[in-house]
């Protein structure tokens, strides 16, 4: 319903005729006016890495990543829009969802699993990511859990390497990693 409504909105105001602020405003309906998403399974995009944001929009448009809500939005975007939106949201500051820190036990277990695969090799020391690699620290727990599950089933097919790494990690370890990352 919401998606349909927004799609309509996009048709009424063709994206290319809008300023970047206007384009970005349409995103707020789901990703939050102040960066805090409306639903828990919608990711934070404020303050996310620029290259990563661009690549996700590109991949939604290409169909390598699919989502009922996001795919139609991305389909209406041109490369220039995507780059501009990515730059726009990357400059915003990352909002706090005030998710609780993981307990010591969970953190220890998560860090062992993390070092076994070497997640920090790409997501970096503080899980802040860089360029094409996303920030994970403080991302919505429910979204992390969902996208990790989607990587495992390859429902999220835009990064087979991440799928492989997720499949090489046990469900239990991933649950602790999710909790740990959300609380950072």
């Amino acid at each position, binding site marked *: 319903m919401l998606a349909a409504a927004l799609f309509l909105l996009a048709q009424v105001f063709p994206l290319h005729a809008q300023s970047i602020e206007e384009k970005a405003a349409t995103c707020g309906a789901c990703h939050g006016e102040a960066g805090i998403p409306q639903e828990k399974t919608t990711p934070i995009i404020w303050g996310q890495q620029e290259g990563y944001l*661009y690549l996700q929009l590109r991949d939604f448009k290409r169909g390598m990543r699919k989502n009922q809500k996001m795919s139609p939005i991305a389909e209406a975007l041109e490369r220039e829009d995507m780059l501009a939106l990515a730059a726009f949201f990357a400059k915003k500051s990352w909002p706090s969802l005030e998710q609780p820190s993981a307990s010591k036990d969970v953190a220890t277990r998560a860090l062992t699993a993390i070092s076994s695969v*070497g997640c920090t090799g790409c997501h*970096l020391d503080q899980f802040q990511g*860089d360029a*094409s690699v996303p920030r994970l620290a403080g991302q919505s727990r429910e979204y992390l859990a969902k996208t990790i599950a989607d990587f495992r089933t390859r429902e999220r*097919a835009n990064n*087979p*390497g991440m799928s*492989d*790494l997720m499949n090489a990690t046990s469900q239990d370890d991933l649950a602790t990693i999710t909790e740990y990352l959300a609380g950072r």
Partner: protein
Amino acid sequence: MKTRKRMGYSFAGALALAVVTMGTASSQEVKSAVKYGDMNTVTQDLLNRAESDGNNFLLTNGDYWQRRYYPNTQINTANVARLHPAWIFQTEVKESLETSPLIINGVMYVTTSFSHVYALNARTGEELWHYKHKLGPVTTFCCGPNNRGVAAYGDMVYLATLDSKLVALDSKTGNVVWTADVADPELGYSETMAPTAVNGKILIGTNGGEYGIRGFLRAYDAKTGKLLWNFNTIPENSVGVWAEKDATGRDMHRDIAAEKAQLAKSGDPFKTLGGGVWQNPAVDLETNRIYFMVGNPSPDLDGSVRPGDNLYTDSLVSLDLNTGQYVCHFQYIAHDIWDLDAVSPAVITTVTGKDGKPTKGVIHAGKTGHVYVHDAKDCSLIRFSEAMVPQENMWTLPTKDGARMLPGANGGVEWSPMATNPVLGLAYAINLHQPMTYHVANAPYPQGKLWLGGAFKVIPSEEQWGNVTAVDYNTGKIRWQVKTPQPMIGGVLATAGGLVFTGEGNGLFKAYDAETGSTLWKFQAGAGVNAPPSSYTVDGKQYIVVGAGGNVQLDYKRGNAIIAFTVD
């Protein structure tokens, strides 16, 4: 005092060295040469003589043969116990440091993660200029936002960037002279290696073996940035000879029939087969050839989608320097499915040949844990050393749930350059022991995204360690070996003072006796010392310099220090 007066450039920051400037000079003019030598430009002649230059450190690995054997003996076994920091420079970037400092006429050039370059006064550590490359939004790298250093030639220094550009900077100011687009980061290409400058050419390879690139080594014109030649590390016919054994004669358990069936179905996989080049080529100006290592095939662990030997992955390759034409190659592992590829840079040195006579050789420390010794003439293998690390279950095929094999996928030796001591006939390599399981999974080419074809996982319950190993390259025997508490990554420097320098993830930087391996000196740097050391001399005083910034790949404590040591 010899002065070579040069107008028209500024030496930003160096103006603080008031002693250097002449009273009449404009604020733009600095005679940097007065105090620290009499060369302003890096000539080919200077580079050719790098091997015996006890003042400068001119090339990433010391000289064109990449021996990392520094000729100055001022710091030596007798006085190294008195080594202490002369200065410490803190960079703006606190992230893994893999830089090989170059030092030219009292000016040091270092790089940091995210493609920054600093020029420092090598005597004081004072910053002369800082170049911060503006990275594009998309960068695709496998093992950290690293950079391993610049090349210097003429009046310029050359940086290869994470977003796959080659940038020429004015060595006096850090201003950009030209920029060349090397490759498209959206397709998985990135640059972390230091370029090599020779005969007016800037040689550069590419990263991207985890992203289904088609690797290359290229020569750009040093003055203009024009592409002079390109060699694809993956030829259009990448199938090879269906080798069933590795370079040491061990069976790799290939299913040749299945591969042939796949080849008939999908054709040669050359377009997305990987084959990155991690490190500088060794240059032999006597024969006008270069020698370098080609990395793993893509996807790393899933061989089913890439039938054949996957030439020239996991190989030593030699090219003609002028034309980039193929001369010879030697493949260590055909159809690699363990990422135990060839990354530590090639070293040219005189070795005992097949006939027992002194022969020009090329040596390489493999991720397998062997030092391989080749004949420079035809790339053929003369011998390989004893294994420097435990090897178990080689070559077990990766499985869905993971199969244990040693060495782990970071290898027995990573990208870390060896050092050599030609007098002792020893090569010094640093090792990793990291038990891992190898997992395989199948996925189609993901257009520049991470393409591992599975995963490697450290087994958390098993002990890890490292070694410093001295290998006699004339016999293949291990002369001495020292165990370290953690796997080693970074690089080694040997000096004519009878010393070997290398650092550890726990922050220790150590000097070993080149002959015996006994520890003669150590220093706690506060962050992982995981970069290759260099040495140089200014005002008659020899220094050892190294970066302490930790390491992304092995997650060693990060820092931002460039530390120069001296004895006095």
